[in-house]
């Protein structure tokens, strides 16, 4: 099948790639652009491991086609830190030991960042339900919630 030329922006960089029209955005990111931070946990929109933002909207990249990225701006886990400096959210995840095998972590960070941008003062219940689409098999979620609540508090105090 003919490959399609896609122009897009990823984490602020303008990029272009060729992809099969049947290919998902997740595969395009991983295989065409070598951005392997987004993971495939299910491929069916049920686990959140592939979470990215598409024009600031949180999506499962396994449910978006690569060609749909045309003209849009994509945000992935690789773009959360500013150069060497980790985002406060990332620091809190380390501090709270909010990860074990770590494979769910990129998706959870992308999703959480999207939440905090919309709602800087979420209740614990809101966090819990917002992240209900991001599965983690290792941690039992307790430390994840604590890290998110703690970051939100710090960011509010800082602003």
């Amino acid at each position, binding site marked *: 099948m003919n490959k399609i030329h896609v122009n897009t922006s990823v984490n602020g960089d303008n990029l272009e790639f060729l992809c*099969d029209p*049947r*290919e998902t955005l997740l*595969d395009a990111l*991983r295989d065409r652009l*070598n*951005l*392997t*931070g*987004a*993971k*495939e*946990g*299910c*491929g*069916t929109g*049920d*686990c959140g*491991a592939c979470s990215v933002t598409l024009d600031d909207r949180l999506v499962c990249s396994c449910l978006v086609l690569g060609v749909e990225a045309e003209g849009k701006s994509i945000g*992935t*886990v*690789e773009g*959360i*830190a500013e150069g060497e400096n*980790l985002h406060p959210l*990332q620091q809190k*995840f*380390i*501090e709270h*030991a909010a*990860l*074990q*095998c*770590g*494979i*769910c*972590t*990129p998706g959870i*960070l992308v999703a959480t960042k999207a939440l905090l941008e919309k709602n800087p003062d979420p209740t614990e219940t809101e*966090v*819990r*339900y917002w*992240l*209900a*689409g*991001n*599965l*983690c*098999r*290792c*941690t*039992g*979620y*307790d*430390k*994840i*919630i604590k890290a998110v609540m703690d970051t939100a508090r710090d960011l509010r105090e800082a602003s």
Partner: protein
Amino acid sequence: MSILKPLPHDAAALHVSGSAQYTDDIPTPDNTLHLVFGLSEIAHGRIVKTDLTDVKSASGVSCVLMAKDIPGKNDISPSPFPEPLLSDGTLNYIGQPIFICAATSHLLARRAAKLAKIEYKKKKAIITIEEAIKAKSLLEKPVVYNKGDPENTILNSEFNLNGTINIGGQEHFYLEGQAALAIPHDDGDITIHCSTQHPTEAQHKVADALKKPMNAVRVQVRRMGGGFGGKESQSNALAVACAIMANQTGKPCKMRYDRDDDMIVTGKRHDFRIDYNVGFNGKGKITGIEFKQFVRCGWSADLSLAIADRAMLHSDNAYFLSDAKITSYRLLTNTQSATAFRGFGGPQGMIGIEQVINHISQYLGKDSLTVREQNFYNNPSKRKNEVQTTPYHMQVKDSIIKPLVKQLKSSSNYTKRRLEIENWNNKNKFLKKGLALTPVKFGISFTLTHLNQAGALVHVYQDGSIRINHGGTEMGQGLFQKVAQVAAQEFSQPIENIKITATDTGKVPNTSATAASSGTDLNGMAVKVACEKIKLRLKSFLGKTYKLKATEIEFLNGSIYCKGKEYSFKSIIKQAYENRISLSATGFYATPEIKWDRLKGKGNPFYYFAYGAAVTEVIIDTLTGENRILRVDICHDAGKSINPAIDIGQIQGGYVQGAGWLTTEELIWNEEGKLMTHAPSTYKIPACSDRPRIFHTNLFHYEGNKKQTIYRSKAVGEPPLMLGISALMALNDAIASVGDWDRYALLDTPATPEKILFEIQKQIRGI
């Protein structure tokens, strides 16, 4: 001090930036082929005709292999029983691999494999435990452990009850699916990157399949995105498939299962049926007990014998059973080969006895905790004739279950909450609460004694930096960090000065699987031994050069002190190097004191026990069966914890995984033997929204392991999973309250809303 510290996971900074590489993230050469299996569509029968022409001519396909194309052995079994990688003509479950298709992309390989035309001759399939019992489909003859005279004591006891509980299986649902990448080399050797808990076995199986010696095969694994036992033997298939295809084509080959394939092809936790017959007195003290455990092993032996053994070994949990008989039936069925899963049979064994205790309490109208307390193992006694034994005649000399439960009972306010819940239930018609405290006593060691060994390799470079390697694999349990802490402690160096590298059969050979919770116990010790060797050499060098006694040289606060004078670690290492002192060593450790006869059911299969307990409070809606966990309090024994942050993570994750298994995670096979729940859309693991609202997790503080384990810590991988049993027992308690506790609530697992509703109806209607 580097131990006893809550340091984050060794690669935490890589994880949060998305740069931590898993097998599927390793950049592959351009000419890499992507593999998928063609799978059986029938549960039992044989292949009459295979037509793969369309597969071969499909776009992007470069090679298709069947069993006959394997140069060496067609076997991926982790046990002495054979288990073919590709069907040899007979088919034993829906999802069994028949052929391997290699194409230029994963997508093309998947599309092509679907084009196979295979004609089958079906035979009657055995799917359920009941069908297997009826057909007498046994893997080996029943195994019996016996202590005392249970038959008579039950007969002569004040009360007698019997019952049955059915326990469902569990999908591992490691978030990273199975994956492997094989890279062939110019000299015919091969390197395999594989998401596996058992690199040595992958190496062994690849070598056999290629008809090569093990030294021609190197297996590496840096990290896994979760394992939980599901990558102990199930990863062999991918490693071997990639190896034979790479061998055939001379190209790098990569295979990763899609989630559906992963769930359809790989084995899961064993389903059980447990029948019990128990005698007890008016206080609820068990006088005699008989268990029959029916274990669904699936189509091949895999690790089932050891798993069924461990279920028997945990049928006492934390309770002293004076007279007990346990019979285990290992059943072969036409389903996935049930395999290792965190707890390895232990959890199912424990559920049997916990169910018995709830049954007794409801029969006697007592709070289940008082009945549990009646039966707990005693605190260790100095007097030999007072030491209690397990049903397999091992003395329990390290029980801390009584003080641990006492502490949890008070920290969780158990007694007061019990009364509050009773009042609450009396006032509320449709919503009912339930409460339960359940204990855990889990035996630590591989029951296959020879597996209790580990090796390590420690290098100190001339600039003073340290690199360590050992046979354990990192799957998120924090093993690498804990072992690095051991090296840091031994050399008294900051943790930043220690690098830990990917597990590699080329560095440390003949390793055991990272399983049985043994990772830190074994590998930590092996690293310690290696560090001690190097330290000894350094001390003898310093002793000779500066005329010092060994006791005058100390590794302290990051430096080396000679007769109280401080030298930097770096400078001493440089000196040692210049004086031609070897700064690299291997370490080896074998667990002492264990001896076990599995067929007789006698001996000391375990080095020690790890303990814990949890209190769970639940609420159920009696109109719908819907339920929530409201509060969890845990007190767990990690000995003297090397890293409390990592250990608490393991404990919470274990609890949630255990509670998920027993409540929402339901596997359904249809009559044909097809797994219907093969994706997260139909198989529900706990999500963030299911997390207990109140979650108190504490370590039990005391002097630590009685045995000389690494810094007196205790293994913490598997035991916490069984804390989740308290959720099941709390649901059981809530249901019993509907019928005013005059009827026993027998709740099979997983206790889904449907099952809960069904039990509630039984309570209401008195059936």
